[in-house]
Each structure stands twice: as structure tokens, then as C-alpha cells.
């Protein structure tokens, strides 16, 4: 999958939840949205990217801090069960 595109999509998700006053609720919102709406290979691509680039940056495009935090802290939950098993 095109990681740059996934980063842009994830950042826009983050931009919505960032407006929530409760930080934990915002983080949880992002995680649940990715879990419920992103197909496994999209989540895996994002997770693999973050593992390889912990700063969340690919060239000039970076994951926004809130999204980076949400994905990093909940990587286990976001990794699809089948991928987790291997």
C-alpha cells in the first residue's frame, strides 16, 4: 500500500479527534477508527512503517504526534489477529 497516502489519511483522522478536549478519548477514538474501518493490510502497512520509522516520518511527510502516539501505544490491538499469530 502507498504509505504516504496512509499517512495522509491517518493524519486527517487525527485532525478530527485532536479537537476532543479529553486526550485519552482522542487517542482511543483514533485507535477504534483504524480498527473498525481500516482493512488489515492497511493497518499492517502503517504499523510496519512506524516500526521502521519511529519518528513517523517518510521524507517530508510525517504522522502527526497524536496519531503516532495512538498507533505506537496500541500497536498490539491494531495488528490483525492473523498477523499477530505469525
Amino acid at each position, binding site marked *: *500500500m502507498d504509505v504516504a*497516502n496512509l499517512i495522509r*489519511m491517518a493524519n486527517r*483522522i487525527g485532525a*478530527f479527534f485532536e479537537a476532543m*478536549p479529553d486526550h485519552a478519548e482522542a487517542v482511543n477514538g483514533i485507535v477504534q477508527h483504524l480498527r473498525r474501518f481500516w*482493512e488489515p493490510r492497511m493497518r499492517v502497512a502503517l504499523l510496519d512503517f512506524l516500526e521502521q520509522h519511529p519518528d513517523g516520518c517518510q521524507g517530508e511527510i510525517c504522522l502527526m504526534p497524536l496519531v503516532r502516539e495512538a498507533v505506537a501505544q496500541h500497536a498490539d490491538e491494531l495488528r490483525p489477529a492473523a498477523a499477530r499469530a505469525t
Partner: protein
Amino acid sequence: MQETVISRERDFGTPARTSSQTVTLVIDGRTVTVPEGTSVMRAAAEAGIAVPRLCATDSLEAFGSCRLCLVEIEGRRGYPASCTTLVEEGMVVHTRTDRLQKLRRNVMELYISDHPLDCLTCPSNGDCELQEMAGVVGLREVRYGFEGASHVADCADKSNPYFVYDPSKCIVCSRCVRACEEIQGTFALTVQGRGFNSRIVAGQDDSFLESDCVSCGACVQACPTAALEEKNVYQMGLPVESIVTTCAYCGVGCGFKAEVQGQQVIRMTPWKDGKANRGHSCVKGRFAWGYATHKDRITRPMIRRSIDDPWQEVSWEEAIRYAASEFRRIQQQYGRDAVGGITSSRCTNEETWLVQKLVRAAFGTNNVDTCARVCHSPTGYGLKQTLGESAGTQTFDSVMHANVIMVIGANPTDAHPVFASRMKRRLRKGARLIVVDPRRIDLVAGPHVRADYHLQLRPGTNVALLTALAHVIVTENLVDEDFVAARCEGDSFRQWRDFVARPENSPEATESITGVPAALVRGAARLYATGGNGAIYYGLGVTEHAQGSTAVMAIANLAMATGNIGREGVGVNPLRGQNNVQGSCDMGSFPHEFPGYRHVSDDAVRASFEAAWGVPLQSEPGLRIPNMFDAALSGTFKGLYCQGEDIVQSDPNTQHVAAALRAMECVVVQDIFLNETAKYAHVFLPGCSFLEKDGTFTNAERRISRVRKVMEPLSGMADWQITQALSNALGYPMNYSHPSEIMDEIARLTPTFAGVSYEKLDRLGSVQWPCNEQAPEGTPVMHVGEFVRGKGRFFITRYVPSDERTSSRFPLLLTTGRILSQYNVGAQTRRTPNVVWHDEDMLEIHPQDAQDRGIVDGAWVGVRSRAGETVLRAKITERVAPGVVYTTFHFPESGANVVTTDSSDWATNCPEYKVTAVEVMAVHEPSAWQQRWSQFSVKQDRLLRERMRKRDEDLVLTGK
């Protein structure tokens, strides 16, 4: 509900009244009780007494001009017209006396003195109310003779492609003029001249085609003679049979009677008992159905190994076997999730149910999606989050109880014309109107309709504006506190309230973003909040944005905050585009939800489907359509079963879509024409038009209506049978023998459909879901006592500018939309005479922007974005604001979507069709894309013709 012989539906003469007060009177010795305000004519009709009439019909208010319906009322002098006389308690009426009969005969004699006597060769022979009335009154002679002045030599106007206006047959009853006013609201017709010289004319005595006539057919429907008659009736004669079905164009879902001779449709007439349209229609449903038997129809299955090969016509068995073997091969080679499907929003509920079932149970994946992805998926997300259900909250009738109507990002006079006519009726009665749109749509200023506020915002700034409206409502204490306290989550409301109240969300602070003067925003907000019943209607101008879902939630926030939800006359009303996009979503076409909008990760729901379908089902969400393209380009998505959806023409960034399809190994297209997507296909399965279907559609009101077959499938197989055959070939058995069995399964597995059956639909005509034990006859208005999710939830809607922004390179914003006469990608309407109104997509550009670029009206202009470039002809108009250009996407050669980008809604990936940064310049030749498209299309057309030629050669050789 088949009528085997056409008989005129009962016409009660004047409209029904709904007063709860009743009046009892005696007519011809019969006692009858009717609502107060009913006419004597209608009261008689309800008692089974038909008073002769010509200018009266029950779809129009009484007019009193023909003088045929005179009656005698005891205690009153003279002979009042029964159509304009209201019932009174204790009235005693006589509808037939010798004196009345003589008067009526004299009136008829005058009419016939100026009327051709060619009944036997007239197209209305046997279907003419004038003929009927002449018989009823016993006319035997015309003492005036026929040598005097008359209109029998008047020339007919044949300019409209579908009907003829023959003034020689006209009796100036004015039904047509009144229909155009009251029902359609276009006011295109009038009576010109006086007395004997009175004639019906269109416009300023223009031809119908040149006038403002929108060809809705209301005048033809109302006309009692052959003065306005369908051309098909001229050519083919009157129909003898009618079948009630549902239109296959837009989300209004008009009920129609297909009037036929055998399997030949003569005309489609609006069904008076259709609850969505109540006897009205638009040009598309009424007249533009000829595409179903167009010569471009493909009726034989075809396969080819490569898209550069000619097509091979094969048998159904071979085509299905080949498709199934390819899908299985791909899954073995690339993985189970390397394939997927797209269900059709033009197909029935039963058909889309089977496609998503095939994808889930036979393919074993959740990679299924539908065209709602590119239109109302944000509605699904946004309303589910706030209210708990992914659907509009009202009926169309509800608009008749609205006091303030807010139309946001919708152009209903073009895209939902029959509903727009109802809305205009309410507006003419005094409801107030707020329009939020970058363009000056027709609703802003039309005949007897004028918007109180037109908030002409910059494309892409909906959320800023909606939040500013909320700011006014909150800071000026216009919140319905009682409603919010009783019906909504307190915490979410308080967070939202604090957010919108911030100074940066005020109309003054957002003016520089939206371009809308603060005073207008304040005025509109106050009107919506305090003007009585406030109803919001919105369309793709809300959803097709980077913040589409956010905007939907903002709309729900406004409705909840002002208590405008949960009863008639209010609500949140998404104007769903396609005839069955609502149904397709209901049927589980989304990759993340089973039917009934239940997430695939819900163990209990999944278990119920696994038990019914006998296979394990995946709990992870599948790929959405845009993600399928990305996965295809990454090499992990290789097979697609695409039913009735032209993704190459309708999805954004055409070059990206085409590249994705080229990267796939098996594209199976099930459709009625070789559309743009089929040019990239390896298997073509010929599908059916709505005239060949049995099933149900669900419209924007959640109304499930029957679609009834008029002709046998031209290809020999119904769409659902094709899907079933493919599933069986894949090894997953399906054994339905009739679509009603599929609906029974839907009802068993989907709680909101639990009470739906064909028997109930035949009995009631239609039902609105939820239809179950709690609501056995359906649910007109939702969220009445409580929201589906319990308490309504507010969401913070912070404005985030789209990534699509103007720059020095792309200084203009392109937005897209639709036009009345063409429908979406135009596959249907381009193959009808509707092209006479719109035969090319044009670029609307403001005079200032045009002048700055040396562009004149009608000139060829290049439109370029970061995604691509195309060429259109320019139309200079002030309907768009400076800085904004607009086009439609009905013709593939226009390449409107070559220019649109992959910018999309954050929650659903709904493409941001409404905001593309572009530059426009004068050019002298088509764009590079258009040249390539032209070459590719010519080649694909040749490959199609070569398959025809091969078949014909085989016929010559074999002598068969």
C-alpha cells in the same frame, strides 16, 4: 398489482382534505360524511356519484371554468359549480336533473363546435374525457355548425422529444397550466388571449422546447384530451395493461405504472398512490426509459484473456465457469483477500444482498463496497455516530409541515425534482428558505420561490459555516434546553457547546474563511432556531468533502440543539442519489458492516450470519473502493466482481482508477452497456434494466417499494440469477427460485427488515424500515421517543481546511454537480432523447475569471489540476462566484474526473469531488488524456464490433 385492462384510476375531481372536522350532507338521496373543506363534487364521488367534469381533476385545486359540473342545491338559487362549492352541514344536493342535463349539453355543444371530429383516428380515442363527457351528457348535434371561426387548423408543436402539443384538440380547461404551477412549480405555461382567442402557450408563446418547460409530464398527465399526448401513443396506440413499478433513476423512488402492450412499454405514468411522488414525475422517469431497449444493449456473455483482445461471445455456462475459475486461481495465488466485489445501487435489494453474500460467503472476504462510498458514506458514518442510525429521519411528506427549510449542498430541482416540487409547494405557502451553496441554484430565486438567505460559501468550508451557525444558536441562547436535557448526552452537549461558543467559531471570525458575511450567518441561524419547524435537507455538497462526515455530524448537532428532530416537519434529510443506494447500504454492501449496519466484529451478529450461511465469516473490515485501487497498484488485489457501477467514469482521479484496473487480472463487469469500466474487463455478464427486474428498491425515505418486471431479461438471466450462478460455480451453493425468497432471508437476518415481505408490500404499496414487531407497518418518522442509540450524541466539529487548496498554480476551485435531464454517468440518459437538453458537459465560469483569462462564452478551455487535465467548452455565468468553476460529469469524453483528486473524507474516503484546485486556460485542442481516451475507446469499440462480426461470420458459415 397488475391491471389487465387500462381503466382510468378513480378521479375524485378535487383534492382530498384532511380536516378532523366532518360534514354530513345528502347528495341524490344518499347521505355522505366527508372532512370539512371538501368540495361537493368530491363528496359526490366518494358516495359513488360521478358528476360530469372537464376542468376538474383531483390532483389540482378546483378552477370552476368548464361549467359542466353544475348542480342544484336546495335553498340556493342558480346552478353552482360543484367543484368550487364546499360542503355544508345538512346541504341537499341534486347532481342530475333535466335542467342540469340541458345546461351540460349546451356547454358540451359549445366545446365541440370548436373541436375536430376525428375521434376514430385521434391518439386519445378511448382515453379522452371530452369524448366521455359528450357521451354522458347525451350530445347529439352541434347547432352552430362548423363553418365559422375555429381552431381546428392550429398547428401542433412537436418540439419536445416525448410529447406533442396539438392546440386544435385543446379545450382550454387550463389543467396543464395549473399542473405546471401547482404540481411542478415551474410556471412554464399560461393562457394567452381572451374569450374565443384563449390559447394555452408555453413561455412567451415559445415552443415547448424553447420555453422553461422541464418536460416533467404533469401537463400531459392532466390533459383530458389529445391536446397533450405522448408521441409513443401516436406511434403505437394506447396501452392495454399496466404494471406498478418503481423508477430506477434517483433516490426519490417514484412509483410508476408501466403501461404496455405485451412487453412493449408505451408509456410510464406516475402512480397516484406512490407515497414518494404522489402522482408526479420528472423527465427522466416519465420519458427517458428507452435506453432499456437501446441498440447498445449487450445481451450475450463475453470473455477475453486480455483487455487488448477482441471479446468472445460465449454461453452463460462458459462465462460463469471462466469467471469462477479465475477468481479461485487468483485467491490461490495471491491470497483469499485478493478479490472483492462492488454491489450496484441501481440493482434491487435482493440482488445486492446476493452480491455481498457471495463476496462474504463464497469469496470469504469482506472486500465489498458500493457506490455510496462516493456519495453518502459520510451520511452513514455521521448519522450513525450522532443519532444511531445511518438514514434520513423523515418522509418526503414531512416537508409540508416545515416552517423553515435549510438546503445545504443540494440542488433538488435538478437532482431530486419530484421532491423539489413538493418542497416548492410548501415554500409557496410561506415556509422560509435558507440555501447554503457556492452556486446560485434555481431554488435561490425561482417562480414564486425566493431564498430568505443564500449563504454562498467558498467550496470546502461547510464545517466552518455550520459551526458558526451553531455558535450563534449557543451564544444567543437559542438552544432548546428541554429537548437537549431530555434526549441527549449531557457531557457531549457541554463539550460541544463550549467548543462552538469560542470566538474563533463566530460568524465574524469565520467570514474570511467561508466568504459569507457574518450578518447573513446570524440571520440564518436565528431563523432556523426560532422559525418553527426547521428541516435540513442536504446532498453531496455536504458529503463529498474532506470533512464530509464532520459536516454531517455538524448538521445533526444543529438539529438536536434546536429540538428539530423526532416529529413531522423537521429532521435531518440526506437526499440519497441513486434509486437503491439506500437499499444497497442497508443490505450490507459496506466492507465493515453486515446487513443492518452492524459491524463485522460483532460476534453475536456474525454468528447469526454464519449459522444461516453455513460458513465462517471474517471479523475484520474489508477494503473500500479507493483502497481496492491502492491495493491493486500494490499488487495485492487482483480480481473484481463489479455489478452495475462505472467506477472508471464516476470515481475520482480517472487515470489512477484505470491504472488500478489494468493491474488486476480478472475484472468481471455485470452491466447493460459496455461502459467505461467494461473497457478494462475480462468478463462481461449482460445485466438487466429495471424493466426486466423483480425485486425491491429503497429510496431516500427508507421506503421499500416493489419493482415489477415488464419484460423478460433480454439476456435470458435476471441479475440475481447471474450472481447465484457465479456463487454456485465458486462452490458456494445458492438455490433461490424467486426474489421473494431472498427478501424472506433478509427479513430473517436483519432486525430492521424483520416484518418485510412481498405480501405486505403488495398489500400496503410500500413500507419504510424499521418494519418489525414494534412497527409492523413501518416507521415514517424516526427517533420519535428516543434516538436509535438512546441519547443523541454531540460531536465537536473543528474546521480543518482541505489539502486541496488554491495556489498560484491552481487559483480556482472546481466543484461538480448534476443536471436535470442527464443522470450521473449518463449511461442511461445519454441513450435517450434527453440529450436534446444537455449534450455535453460545460464549464461554468464567472465573467471576471473568464475575462482575466481571455475566455469567451463557448470557447474551448483546458481545466488542469494536480491529478490531470481535460478540455471542456466554457459557459460564462454569474451562477458561480468569482474563484469557483463548475461542471457536470455526464459524458465520459468530458473527463471531469480526470481532474478530481484522491482527496477524500477522513472517516469514509468519500472523494472530495466538490473541491479541486484548478487552473483554467483557453486551448485549441483536446487534452492529452482526451486524445488517449479517444484512441482507447475507439479500440475497445472495435474489439466489441469484432466480436459481433465474428458471430455473424459464424452464422453465415454454419447457416444457423
